[in-house]
């Protein structure tokens, strides 16, 4: 095993799940809304304010493109 810790895979399978990843090796948090919008934060209170403001300020970024190429760094939904 390498020493690196992989980003935890998603566990909850609902349609409205918020995910917050602690960006490895940093002090930052990556918030991922159920709409696909993402943003980096350094304060969990501000993070929750942004997440719960959905859809205000949420841009549906990283919509899976039909074109070939590397997939965005998003996790698949669990079975």
């Amino acid at each position: 095993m390498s020493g690196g810790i992989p980003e935890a895979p998603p566990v909850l399978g609902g349609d409205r799940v918020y995910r917050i990843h602690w960006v490895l090796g940093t002090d930052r948090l990556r918030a991922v809304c159920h709409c696909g919008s993402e943003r980096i934060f350094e304060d969990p209170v501000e993070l929750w304010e942004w997440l719960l403001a959905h859809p205000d300020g949420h841009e549906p970024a990283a919509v899976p493109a039909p074109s070939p190429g590397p997939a965005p760094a998003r996790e698949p939904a669990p079975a």
Partner: protein
Amino acid sequence: MSIIPRNQWYVAAYGSEIRHELFARTICDEPILFWRTESGEVVANSDRCVHRRFPLSRAPSRLVDGKVVCGYHGFTYGSDGKCVAVPGQTRVPRTARLTPYPVVELDSLVWIWIGDPALADPTRIPRATYLASPDYTTVRGMEPLRARFALLVDNLLDLSHETYLHGGYIGTPEVASTPISTEVDDEAGIVYVSRHMDDAECPPFYAKSTGLQGRIARWQDIEYTPPCLYKLHSRIAPVGSVPNPDGTDPDAYHVEVVYAITPETEHSTHDFWMVARDFALDDEAVSAFLAENNRTVVLQDVEALDVLEQEIQGEPEGYQELSINIDTGGLAARRMLARMAGQAPRNAPAAPAR
């Protein structure tokens, strides 16, 4: 305004606590009387006689032929709470009835519905089947906490405190220093916090119970279903071991640490704790070790939270606390609890109306 969510299921007791005798416990500020009927069913009613409010759990009140007889004037109630006899007259007033509570016994726990009985849906009770499974051995206890239940939720949602408050038991340096991931499902009512330490010191709690020596893979996966049930799926394995794709995990030791966080009053809590394991099932020494050590850990939390409660009660209005990355899951839990209680949460925004 109350911080206790109503119209919710709470763990009132372990099934083993309720026998064919009167048993009293205050749940969410409501004094409640329990007993197990001759047929084995747990029943719950308000613990005050409708006549002059004498506690029916208090001697000389007693259970006679499946009915509770008030020790003050003899008002007698059936297991459904209906009064069947009053002293000196044959007519029993129609309104003479204790308030019955919906109760479900599940997974070795007695769940009670606090709120409108018409809304009680047993399918909403979160499960912990391993607590009553022959594939696991469980040790358990309950400690009185002189602090509001939300402080215990805060405590359990952020396990980085193990490093400092529980050093020498379950805390090691890696717990506080390993990043977490947090998932929140508002619709299902789940907060899930993962901390996977793939190369960590093995704390005495696990070294002595599993026999693993040296460094370990230690995974902590918290699954909290507000308001009451908290489950910590703890996986202890040799470094490098991961579960198989089919979900089997033969090299790992699994410890399910469960808390039922039940408000007694606005400022006190029933701290039910359980430790279920899938190894050394018949080893009494392991059971005794885990029970004693987990109780010690729980009492360390109780001592700290009792202090915190006093601090909070004495602090000026509007005290502003600080939250950092480790609090991400705890903030989500606070938000859900506040919404359940119909309040705006402290230091965490309320969820939008859906």
